[in-house]
């Protein structure tokens, strides 16, 4: 299917209810504008080669749009010499687009740092986590504060692999993240953790799908969104467990911390469980700063704004607590702390 022949998705669709396609499209919805390729660079231990497998759903408008916007794609291969590989992605120009594919045959932690001044950035990340590997991927969105981001992820997790994926969303004005992971081998484990910091008018939408197409697979999803000013966070989850996928264990927890009266947050976990012998759970909570926590910190000498900042930092740090990769946790928390310290200085 070509983008030009696709209908604009309806807001009745779960995926497009909170950030409709026209609001995240870079211009008029009928257009596929000229785009500048994202600039990629990689640290020691990894190499980037041109080209990537096309893993495009014939039905999904965002992925088709991204594929038509830019044909440039890169594939990361890791040589196993470094425990952590850093990738810099720089988005520039009016419209920027990039596709990164990760082929991990070795245990590794990959940190992807997105920055740049692009007005609009489209990013497609795909990857196959091969059998018996332990792979951790961290993604930090630090786009300029006026940029829009459309990000689509598609991951497959093979037999007995362990995959951890963390996202820190602190950049961009309007961000739509559509993150999908599919198990295609038993014995695999997937943990996804997302921390969001909403400031000013930021609108951050995370739609996370995890599909247990085979049994004996485990997944967890944690989203922590701290929203200040008039920011808006949306977290929608879709967890599916196929009819034959017995002995799966899956859970989703969404927490929102509302820091101002105008801040808004939606948390909508959704489960489609067709198998009988599974454990599946979900929970969602939104609340303002806990007054007992605030009082406790103030009783130790912290001024109200200092105490609130520490609670927010802790809340966002805690978003990564479900992960087990020390390198990934360390990297994400370091990025978060640096971001919050910069925010305080502004």
């Amino acid at each position, binding site marked *: 299917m070509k983008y030009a022949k696709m209908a604009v998705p309806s807001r009745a669709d779960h995926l497009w209810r909170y950030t409709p396609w026209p609001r995240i499209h870079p211009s008029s919805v009928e257009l596929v504008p000229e785009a500048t390729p994202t600039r990629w660079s990689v640290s020691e231990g990894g190499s980037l080669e041109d080209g990537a497998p096309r893993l495009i759903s014939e039905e999904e408008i965002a992925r088709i749009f991204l594929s038509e916007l830019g044909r440039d794609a890169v594939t990361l291969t890791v040589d196993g010499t470094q425990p952590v590989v850093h990738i810099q992605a720089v988005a520039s120009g009016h419209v920027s687009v990039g596709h990164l594919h990760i082929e991990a045959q070795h245990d590794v932690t990959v940190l992807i740092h997105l920055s740049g001044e692009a007005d609009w950035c489209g990013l497609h990340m795909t990857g196959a986590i091969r059998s018996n590997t332990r792979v951790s991927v961290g993604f930090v969105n630090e786009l300029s504060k006026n940029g829009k981001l459309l990000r689509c992820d598609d991951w497959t997790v093979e037999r007995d692999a362990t995959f951890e994926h963390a996202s820190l969303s602190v950049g961009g004005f309007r961000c739509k993240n559509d993150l999908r992971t599919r198990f295609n081998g038993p014995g695999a484990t997937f943990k996804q953790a997302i921390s969001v910091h909403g400031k000013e008018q930021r609108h951050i939408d995370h739609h996370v799908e995890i599909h247990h197409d085979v049994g004996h697979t485990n997944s967890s999803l944690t989203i922590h969104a701290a929203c200040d000013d008039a920011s808006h966070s949306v977290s929608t989850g879709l967890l599916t467990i196929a009819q034959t996928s017995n002995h799966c264990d899956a859970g989703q927890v969404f927490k929102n911390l509302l820091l101002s009266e105008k801040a808004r947050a939606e948390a909508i976990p959704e489960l489609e469980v067709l198998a009988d012998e599974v454990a599946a759970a979900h929970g969602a909570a939104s609340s303002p700063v806990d007054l007992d926590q605030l009082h406790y910190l103030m*009783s130790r000498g912290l001024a109200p704004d200092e105490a609130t900042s520490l609670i927010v930092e802790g809340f966002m740090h805690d*978003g990564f607590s479900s992960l087990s990769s020390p390198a990934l946790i360390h990297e994400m928390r370091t990025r978060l702390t640096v971001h919050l310290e910069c925010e305080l200085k502004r």
Partner: protein
Amino acid sequence: MVMAREILRIENLHVSVEGTPIIRGLSMTINQGEIHVIMGRNGAGKSTLANVVMGHPAYEITEGSIHYCSEPLEELSVFERARAGMFLSFQYPAVIPGVQVGTFLKKSVQSVSDEPLKGRAFRKQLNEAMASLEMEKSVLSRYVNDGFSGGEKKRLEMLQMLLLKPTLALLDETDSGLDIDALRIVAKGINQVAPDAGCLIITHYQRLLDHVKPHFVHVMIDGKIIKTGGADLALELEAKGYDWLEPTAGAEA
């Protein structure tokens, strides 16, 4: 004769919570180096007293006054009281997920200090205090009170007290739920701070007083101090309970 420095003076204090009177005319004075103990039944107003002195916003002073180091306290918010040298060891300390104990301690000490915190000096002080309280270093990377046992929480409160070096230490049932070893360690913390501070200890049990020697024991009933004595009063309460001190006890007899 040198007069001891006055740390806390409470005069005819009346306190309400959401319109309900809890403290009904309480007066007491704590001088530097003195350990005062308040005992009383549940609901007598003991924790309310500690919280109102620390400035909890839920409590309203309807009458009377509190002076700290001869200055009125009413205008000071909670953090300003802490920076002025007041410390409350909470009965139920808040859990703060995601905030590591080490980070929290550093920020707290920095907050109450007049000078920039020097890393090496702070670490030395921290190591000494933790050794004194027989605490594992691993606690520093845990989240504040998250998943802590009752004893661990109380030890962390004592650690904070040692590091913050308060002028007035308010300890709200710090001994509750502690085993014998933990009680001994908590008492050690109190005894380290007590000589330079005024201490107000709220407790239900005499057993803490085997390790911490109070100068005054007060009995609080219905929001008032109805009897004050020395350490022997705690033993008497342990043996006889509170009924004999009820205002109506004499009339009924």
